[in-house]
């Protein structure tokens, strides 16, 4: 069992080390992230200061929510794995299929590295800066922190499952169009990345929380804030797990269909 997992672990760690090389990109990204975070904080501040009515989440929590989002921005499934996209486009996907491993999990490992490495580089400095200078707060209790950690693990698996699935759809829309064009808008809006989900219309809340995207950002962040009680983590993990399984099943099914009709030309 352990032995059969080694190739995927190897790909994960090799890709991880490759991606960690891009430190200048990480610093440039960090600057952009701070800039956007600041603008978003100002927008919410303006809204909160101009209205006296009670909101389902207070301004201090929204500010922390925003900085947490800026820190973890890179693991949200809003784009596809660029190397796989290139392989599908130029036909090198044929080599990938020759490897004596399950291509789905091979790609899942590639996607996991691509989601995690940039996040690891940026998240800690971003969060440290935000806590020290930009008004981000720490979780109110250790149990909130623990719940957030667990939910973040669930969110990472879900993000990778969605990304892998969408990457496989490139087998049909080779030039990287189709669903990948619609993904950023959908994910940003429905995960809470653009606006915290509690601030979206009340009538939509049950739907938004049942969709796969709230498990990426909103539910883990609200566990961090204590806006959801720590024991809500089990519900969060259940939703994330169910959607992860659904996306993994869908991804594997798409791959088996796509690889059967694959034609690689040239040589």
């Amino acid at each position, binding site marked *: 069992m352990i032995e059969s997992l080694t190739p995927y672990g190897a790909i994960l760690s090799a890709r991880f080390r490759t991606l960690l090389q891009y430190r200048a990109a990480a610093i440039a990204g960090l600057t952009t992230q701070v800039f956007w975070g600041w603008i978003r904080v100002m927008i919410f501040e303006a*809204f909160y200061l*101009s209205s006296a009515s009670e909101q389902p989440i207070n301004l201090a929590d929204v500010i922390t929510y925003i900085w947490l989002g800026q820190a973890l921005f890179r693991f949200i499934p809003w784009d596809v794995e660029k190397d796989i996209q290139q392989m599908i486009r130029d036909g090198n996907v044929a080599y990938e299929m020759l490897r004596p491993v399950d291509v789905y999990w091979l790609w899942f490992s590639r996607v996991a590295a691509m989601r995690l490495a940039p996040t690891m580089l940026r998240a800690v400095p971003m969060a440290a800066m935000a806590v020290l200078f930009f008004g981000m707060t720490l979780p109110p209790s250790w149990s909130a922190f623990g719940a957030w950690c667990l939910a973040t693990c669930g969110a990472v698996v879900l993000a990778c499952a969605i990304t892998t699935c969408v990457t496989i759809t490139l087998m049909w829309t080779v030039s990287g169009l189709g669903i990948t064009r619609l993904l950023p808008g959908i994910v940003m809006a429905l995960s809470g990345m653009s606006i915290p989900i509690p601030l*979206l219309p009340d009538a939509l809340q049950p739907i938004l929380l049942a969709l796969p995207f709230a498990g990426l950002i909103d539910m883990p962040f609200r566990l961090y804030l204590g806006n959801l009680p720590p024991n809500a983590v089990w519900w969060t993990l259940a939703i994330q797990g169910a959607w992860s399984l659904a996306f993994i099943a869908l991804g594997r099914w798409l791959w088996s269909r796509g690889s059967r009709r694959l034609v690689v030309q040239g040589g």
Partner: protein
Amino acid sequence: MPDALRLYFKYIALSMRGQMQYRASMVMTAFGLFFNIGIEFVAVWALFARFGEIRGWHLADVAMLYGMINMSFALSEAVGRGFDTFDRW
């Protein structure tokens, strides 16, 4: 200068014809942009629905600004964006 301009318009025509080769993908790209801008605007709407107004500014005022900014951005992209990909034509 006139020569450069003529070349510039040639490039535009070329780019148009190039994109028209993949008509479905062009339509999808256009729809994708439309969709993403639209969904951003839904976020703006949701904030106004929750907070009412922001220091005298209502949704309609902000929608106007939002539209103008998006239009100018799209126009400037259409006119100037191609320069960094000219060498590929």
